[in-house]
């Protein structure tokens, strides 16, 4: 049998060779600053600053501890301070919705980077719980969780929804896998993130009052005397949406064993000028359902 296979393959693949190369493209790479931050309205700003390295570089990625990080608004300028020798920066700056924020980072070893964002407005999200108000995916009665909000019209808006349930045994909130039963979430512009949250756009309900609902699995929190669910609903920026969506797609592409389009490459979205990463901004409301 083997010889027949060899004969067949010889005809087809005679003349196919393979070698390894080191393209010029991959050399002379200049390391950039990578900003990772999520600014939330009403909460102190935090930021993580690391570097990027050449893809050929086998050493690990490093934090950047001694950078000058400035936050500017029309009203004030604040400096973000690093923890000692650390690459985590923090400030008492509190983002407020509707106001532009400019972040700039300087370090002598890197090209300066900056980003300008606006905290999205509050969309008055209201979360409600109806015990055994729906049927779960098994057809059994489950708690109905509803989130209603007012989507601003005449512009594209993006949202992130996380639902947690209280685990009585370990005494902590556990992310609940979200069932995307709403038509607005089943379209092409909705993604489930690795933290079980879902991000979506308002393409199918632009400018209207929207209610998103899901049904928890039967009996999930039936023994909880007090806290049952926590709903985090965030009005996020388009950059936030694009960034998470590209991260998700990159993770999906890693699971594909063959080389698909563009060699499975996914360009991670960034809103950091001259650098990488994301300055994500969100207006978040948190509701604990009891």
């Amino acid at each position: 049998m083997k010889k027949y296979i060899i004969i067949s393959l010889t005809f087809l693949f005679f003349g196919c060779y393979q070698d390894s190369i080191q393209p010029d493209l991959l050399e002379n790479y200049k390391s950039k600053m990578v900003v990772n931050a999520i600014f939330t309205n009403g909460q102190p700003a935090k930021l993580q600053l690391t570097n990027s390295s050449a893809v050929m570089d086998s050493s690990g990625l490093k934090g950047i501890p001694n950078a000058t990080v400035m936050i500017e608004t029309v009203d004030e300028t604040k400096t973000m301070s690093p923890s000692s020798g650390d690459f985590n920066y923090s400030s008492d700056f509190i983002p407020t919705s509707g106001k532009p924020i400019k972040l700039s980072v300087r370090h002598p070893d890197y090209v300066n980077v900056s980003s300008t964002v606006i905290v999205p407005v509050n969309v008055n999200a209201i979360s409600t719980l109806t015990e055994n108000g729906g049927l779960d995916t098994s057809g059994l009665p489950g708690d109905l969780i509803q989130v209603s909000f007012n989507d601003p019209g005449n512009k594209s808006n993006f949202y992130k929804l996380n639902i947690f349930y209280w685990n009585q045994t370990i005494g902590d909130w556990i992310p609940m896998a979200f069932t995307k039963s709403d038509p607005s979430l089943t379209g092409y512009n909705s993604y489930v993130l690795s933290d079980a949250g879902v991000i979506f756009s308002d393409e199918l309900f632009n400018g209207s009052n929207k209610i998103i609902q899901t049904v928890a699995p039967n009996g999930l929190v039936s023994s909880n005397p007090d806290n049952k669910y926590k709903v985090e609903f965030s009005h996020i920026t388009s950059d936030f949406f694009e960034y998470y969506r590209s991260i998700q797609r990159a993770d999906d592409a890693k699971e594909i064993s063959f080389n698909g389009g563009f060699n499975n490459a996914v360009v991670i979205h960034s809103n950091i000028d001259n650098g990488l990463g994301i300055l994500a901004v969100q207006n978040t409301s948190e509701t604990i359902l009891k």
Partner: protein
Amino acid sequence: MRFLYLTAIVNLFYANVLAQGYTSGFIMDEDENGIPHVQVIELGENNVSYSNDMGAFLLKYFEEDARVLFVHPDYDTLQLQINSSTDRIIFLQPKVGNNNYHLGFHAGFLDFSTKNKNKNLENMPYFLGESDVNRQLQMLPGIEQGTEGYSNLFVRGGDVDQNMMLYNGTPIYNYNHLFGISSTFHNKSIKNTKIYRGLSPAKYGGRVSSYIDLESEKNSSYSGLDGEFEMTPLNAGIYISNINKGKGFFTLAARRSWIDLMVPLESRQNSLNANIYDIQLNFGKTLHSNDKIEFNFMNTRDFYFISLQSDDSLPSSNDTRVVGFTQKWSNLLASIKYKQKLNYSLNAEHQLYISSYKAKSIFKEEIFDPNITTIPTTQLELTNGIQDLGVQSNWTFIKNNAHSIQFGLQSSFRFFQPGKKIYRSQGYPTIADINTITGNTKSVFSNELSLYGEDHWRLNDKTYFDLGLRQVYYTHDGYHKLAFEPRIHGTFLLQHRDALKVGYNRHNQFLTQLNLGRTGSPDNIWVPSTSLVKPTQLDIFELSYERKLGKIYAGSFNLYSKRMTNLVGVSNLSDASNPELDWQSSVVFGTGRSYGAEWLIQKSDGDITGWLSYAYSRSFRTFSDLYDQEYLFSFDRPHMLKLYVNYTNPRSDWNFGFNYLLGSGQLFTLPIGKFRDINGNTQLEYNTLNNYRSNVYQRFDVSVIRLKNTYGLEQEWRFYLYNALGNINPLSVAAVFDSANFSKLVVDRAYLAFVPGVAYIVKF
């Protein structure tokens, strides 16, 4: 629609009442090729008509008989006394030094029987020795193969699914064998290949990149039975033709792989099997009424099967697991065509066709356990495909000597199968049998109804216009779209040795093939345009200049600019290929643009013929969901020079041919850096998509043909060598990491060189 028919009927009445006589027919050269742009003049009257691109003419006049002049600068003028109301074939004698290059047809149009003729394509070097119409087209300017070694067609920065390939008027939805390495057509089953690389008459519609019209042999310069037998490393093939000149034809072409037949039957059934076949059968007849009827049939199939026995069972178990994987795909085309000549100025051609493409992947596991009486079996079957049922009625009405109007109605009923998954489990002792069907249990329907009209308006002996409009009404699942497609083209014959052509077209495409990783793969899925996935639209502007050069050379220069909207790309390969998920959730939308300049110089006479072409072309894409900015299309190649030369002398024992290509390397995407994302995971950094252009593409292919006549049979041995200089033209460049943290990178490159091919041919 009613207005158009009404106009046609009124005009027909008008013509029949007032015209008292006519002369019609074909004007041909000594090789029975039609001669375009011949002035047909009624002597003594200001009454002139012109032959069209096929050499057909119709002169209407008011005398019963007339003396008619046939005038063309490259041919001796002929004067005839012609009885009215006759059809005849007129032969013109070429002048000394005549260059018979055909200046007609639209800008961007090419074929191998009129525009680019006498090139002896049988002597072109072919990959693995398999004569391939796609590879002939790949040597023309503006048409690229895509991935090295493949038989795909990327026309002027368009994608493969944007080409409509027609076999005798019927569209084929997968024209590849061997995952894209070979075309599905027996070389001999194609008498002429025509390609509209952008602009096209209003009769053609439904794709935004090109229309490739393949015609089988239907007439010949002599009657008789011909045939040949061909053997290559991949296939054994036969071609038989019986032409009754002007009265009917019968052609049969068939190929089948033979290597698998060398493998014992038991092994083929149980371990490994791979075979392909295709068959093309055409039959036509001229009826007593001079109407013509023809039947065309085509069937292709690829079949691959591998089965492995698993020995990793638990030690305590005695079972043996056999896992099999089968992949197969097939095309089935059938059509009936009826051509009518209703009167001297009104012709019609009606066609009914069906084209069916189906691909299937089957995973099967069987457990052979001596302890149980059944054979527990699980089987997963994935199916995708498309069926196209079409009906057309195409008419030509010659209103008068200056206006010839083409109009028609075309309808395409498509039934898409984007993905169906059947899961079966049976024979397990403690588990009930399972038989579930998920995905699209029924086909998804769409209809494309097109009405078109086009006036071929001859302004004077040097100027004519083709002014057309195509109107398409598309429906799918409640989504309706009415699209208008202007088709405007002007031809200006400057000195009858050169022509300037200019045109603008709009085309819409109401279906897309989702590329799930590799062009030509049977896993790629045809899907309809929907309310979410809008039809792709193309606007193209083209300018061309063609010139006869001396006696045996001709040159052309084309400039084009294209803009495409509503392009569809796949954002998530695994989700898009999962039939349980809506494919619309896994696509992204974008735009594209391309432009270019193409030069072509050809030599069409003598023992040595061929062509030299150079194309400067750029193609870009913008998919904001994939990358914020515009990036280069995957098969963008700014520079490409192609040379095809053959020496063909039937009296010589040896003939030869070669291809030489020199141009920009292929694009690949490589990561340039890495960084930590907001979740703390390492991600790769790409400065853009398609960021790495491989080294200069250079390829020299050679064919050597040994002609031998023994026992009264013409025999040929054809020897080929692909990439004979061994240039490294990558078919893949991929970044390979040793771990998920991307800590160590190796960039692997694969390429083809010194690939031999051989074919043995016996003609009878």
